[in-house]
């Protein structure tokens, strides 16, 4: 059932591979995709990956630097795969322990790893074990508890006697069960409603309530017992069944609801009062008395509290376990850890990883990203042999630092000037679009980038596609004037370096963008910078409008502008922006965010975690960093400096 299974070293040499019968495609492509998107992007937390029609599962062996990958069709749900990989890994290690313990990559090249027979045996075992578990058959009615109860005990008598005779384990005929089944369900529902009524305090006096609570308390102290049964002694007055609900205004005639007469008599500006009353018939007077009510989200609050409590309980348990282990092996563990080779286990790394996770979160990395990163580092280090005089903490810190630098390295070439030169040689303008939420600095950084481009000798056209915010067009016009005064047209061969293309307010942004690009092509502008309005990621119509602008105009670069002050919000913003762009594009390969502009970087001193969150989520590089409000405050990202600021205590 498996399409392929491959064992290769982390240096890239394939030790052994197996290709299923009838599989013609080589597995190199999918495995490379797996490596590039999961392992190298530090998403190794979850160990499965889908590529086209294949589903891939993998396991890292960090002691001998091996990777085990299995691939099978996505539509099959094979339950034995996880256990199978573990078995294969253990088997392979045991069998080739001697060869693998040699040093250097030559061990992979020199030795022949013949694993075929063992593999097929293990596969057969795994498949058999998965088939052996027969599906659990449903219980018959005779085996259930309900058949043990008598019919009489389930019938509701009118005097409210709820004695459930649990005795009488007579077996019944199937027909009788069928007939009485319906009665039983009706009776059950009636008992339920009656129980509810009884437990409520309707119809009970204060004394009886106290008595009932006292009885409940005693029964709890005794441990167990059903409080409803023990509180039977003072019989509560029988409720008359369902009480009719009384509405405040219901049942009265409409004469009482007609306030027109009183309004006209009491006030002086009778007409105003009439207008108010008729225009706002829905507001009930006296409903806003007292403090303002909070925003309605009680239900989700309750759920959150429950989840939190569960998490707290689980965390407390794991902490206790960890503390116990630490107490016993503490002394020897310390010595062992310093000298000699020691394998890293999950328990060793956990306290360090927790501390690192908290440290990252304190440095403004989004919480889920910090935990995913720590899981990925744990996976990478599990089973690794530490050298002498290295502690667990130092190994983990080093690994985390490496993975952070890896994340911040751009996955593709980031050289805007080179691309603009290319576009110039092809005689078409290079189009950059700026998008982001409100107030992150799109227009300011657009001005900074156009200043940089002008300094390098390009002509820039700014398209004012922010047709919503008051003053947006005037802001860009002021920037244009200032830039032109800094770089007078005489220096640029007679034409102004920057020009603004605007069509006022209220128009369609995508249309303005299209016209701006056509104008730039006609007039020979080399770069077009499109400024869009800020929009919240939850605002569906605005996201649709942005997606339409990008899909229709196909800019060369879509830059997402995000501020460095943002915390967990960054994840939500980027995910929803990418989602909107992907959903509303009509092509197979939608244009997603190509790069990130990180603004307001001078306001954070070393809480630089937003950079990590944004690059991790999108996988796109940070192209510009804004460090102030003047034109020269534009930088590129220095990965090492950011990571050292992050890891600083």
């Amino acid at each position: 059932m498996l399409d392929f299974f491959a064992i290769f070293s982390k240096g890239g040499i394939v030790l052994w591979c197996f290709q299923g019968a009838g599989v013609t495609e080589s597995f190199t492509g999918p495995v490379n995709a797996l490596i590039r998107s999961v392992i190298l992007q530090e998403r190794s937390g979850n160990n499965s990956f889908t590529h086209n029609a294949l589903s891939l599962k993998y396991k890292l062996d960090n002691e001998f630097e091996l990777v085990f990958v299995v691939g099978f069709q996505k539509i099959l749900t094979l339950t034995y795969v996880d256990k199978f990989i573990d078995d294969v890994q253990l088997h392979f290690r045991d069998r080739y322990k001697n060869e693998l313990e040699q040093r250097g990559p030559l061990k992979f090249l020199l030795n022949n790893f013949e694993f075929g027979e063992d593999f097929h045996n293990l596969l057969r075992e795994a498949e058999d074990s998965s088939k052996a578990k027969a599906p659990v058959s449903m219980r018959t009615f005779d085996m259930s508890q309900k058949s043990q109860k008598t019919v009489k005990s389930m019938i509701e008598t009118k005097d409210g006697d709820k004695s459930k005779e649990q005795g009488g384990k007579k077996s019944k005929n199937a027909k009788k069960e069928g007939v009485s089944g319906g009665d039983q369900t009706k009776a059950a529902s009636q008992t339920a409603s009656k129980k509810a009524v009884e437990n409520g305090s309707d119809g009970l006096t204060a004394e009886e309530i106290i008595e009932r609570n006292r009885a409940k308390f005693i029964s709890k102290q005794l441990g167990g017992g059903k409080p409803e049964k023990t509180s039977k002694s003072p019989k509560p007055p029988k409720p008359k069944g369902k009480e009719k609900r009384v509405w405040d205004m219901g049942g009265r005639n409409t004469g009482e609801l007609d306030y027109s007469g009183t309004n006209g008599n009491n006030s002086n500006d009778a007409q105003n009062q009439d207008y108010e009353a008729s225009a706002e018939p829905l507001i009930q007077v006296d409903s806003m008395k007292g403090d303002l009510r909070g925003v309605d989200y009680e239900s989700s609050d309750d759920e959150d509290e429950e989840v939190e409590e569960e998490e707290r309980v689980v965390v407390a348990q794991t902490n206790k376990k960890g503390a116990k282990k630490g107490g016993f092996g503490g002394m020897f563990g310390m010595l062992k850890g310093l000298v000699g080779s020691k394998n890293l286990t999950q328990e060793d790394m956990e306290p360090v990883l927790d501390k690192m996770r908290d440290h990252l979160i304190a440095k403004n990395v989004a919480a889920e990203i910090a935990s995913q990163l720590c899981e990925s580092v744990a996976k990478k280090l599990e089973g690794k042999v530490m050298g002498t005089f290295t502690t667990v903490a130092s190994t983990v810190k080093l690994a985390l630092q490496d993975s952070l630098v890896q994340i911040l390295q751009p996955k593709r070439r980031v050289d805007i000037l080179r691309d603009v030169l290319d576009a110039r040689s092809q005689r078409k303008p290079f189009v950059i679009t700026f998008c982001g939420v409100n107030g992150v600095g799109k227009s300011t950084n657009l001005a900074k980038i156009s200043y940089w481009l002008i300094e390098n000798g390009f002509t820039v056209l700014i398209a004012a596609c922010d047709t919503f915010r008051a003053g947006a067009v005037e802001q860009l016009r002021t920037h244009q004037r200032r830039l032109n005064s800094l770089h007078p047209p005489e220096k640029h061969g007679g034409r102004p370096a920057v020009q603004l293309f605007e069509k006022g307010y209220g128009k369609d942004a995508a249309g303005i963008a299209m016209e701006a690009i056509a104008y730039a092509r006609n007039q020979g502008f080399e770069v077009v910078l499109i400024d869009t309005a800020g929009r919240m990621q939850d605002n569906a119509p605005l996201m649709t409008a942005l997606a339409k602008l990008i899909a229709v105009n196909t800019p060369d670069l879509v830059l997402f502008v995000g501020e460095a002050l943002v915390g967990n919000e960054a994840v939500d913003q980027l995910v929803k922006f990418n989602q909107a762009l992907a959903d509303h594009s009509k092509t197979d390969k939608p244009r997603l965010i190509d790069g990130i502009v990180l603004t307001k970087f001078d306001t954070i001193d070393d809480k630089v975690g937003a950079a990590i969150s944004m690059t991790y989520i999108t996988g796109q590089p940070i192209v510009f960093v804004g460090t102030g409000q003047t034109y020269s405050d534009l930088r590129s990202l220095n990965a090492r400096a950011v990571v050292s600021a992050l890891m600083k205590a």
Partner: protein
Amino acid sequence: MDEKIHLDLEDFSSEPFLETFIKEIQKEEAVFLIGIFVALLLVILTVVFFGNFWGSSKARNAVLLLGLCDSGKTLLFSRLLLGKFVRTQTSITESSATYKSKSDRGSSWTLIDVPGHESLRVQIVEKYKAVARAVVFVVDSSVFQKDVRDVAEFLYSILTDSIVAKNAPALVVACNKQDVSMAKSAKLIQQQLEKELNTLRLTRSAALSSQDGPVGGSVYLGKRGKDFEFSQLPSHVEFIECSARGSKAEDGDADIDALEKSLARL
């Protein structure tokens, strides 16, 4: 409070202590003192001497295999070491092994296969650039036309690195995958790279500096005013053709004679 402060000051004043110390030293005979000084001097000299010695023995004897992803570095690594064909995947970590060159002297180098993936290559090159004696830059000749800008950017970042520019290791550009019919020749690749690096000189020097000042080298490649040519570089540059896979893949040998010859000449 005043009393307490007074006590502290008395504790920390070390002048009377120093005086007694000096008096004690002066009581000893001069010969003894000279002996102590000579011993100290010897220790310092040994440390300095060994430091130099160790520093020089860390001679640059590493040959780095660099290149973009999928250019054939790992296969070349295997072929050079053992002449063996292996299936390869994208490398995640670097591999290093000793390589005995086929020259008369039989000198041996450390051959280091650096992963080509963008997120990994910078860190690993940082680790090994100081001990690099030669750089074998592997280029995929069959898809070169598409990747010319990425290849040039990587080559540019290596050549302008300050440490690399100072040491000037020999550069061998191996145009790999010559067995593919659409492969470009070494001469063509050289011309295209020269043109591309020429443009990159302008755009990269105009690139934004990072937050804490310019990143990477501020080295200017070649001569100003003239078009860039590889002959202008201080290191010895060679363009050769090779095919790690060979004409018959698993069974045959690789066409890496030219590469082996240039490695022998190091």
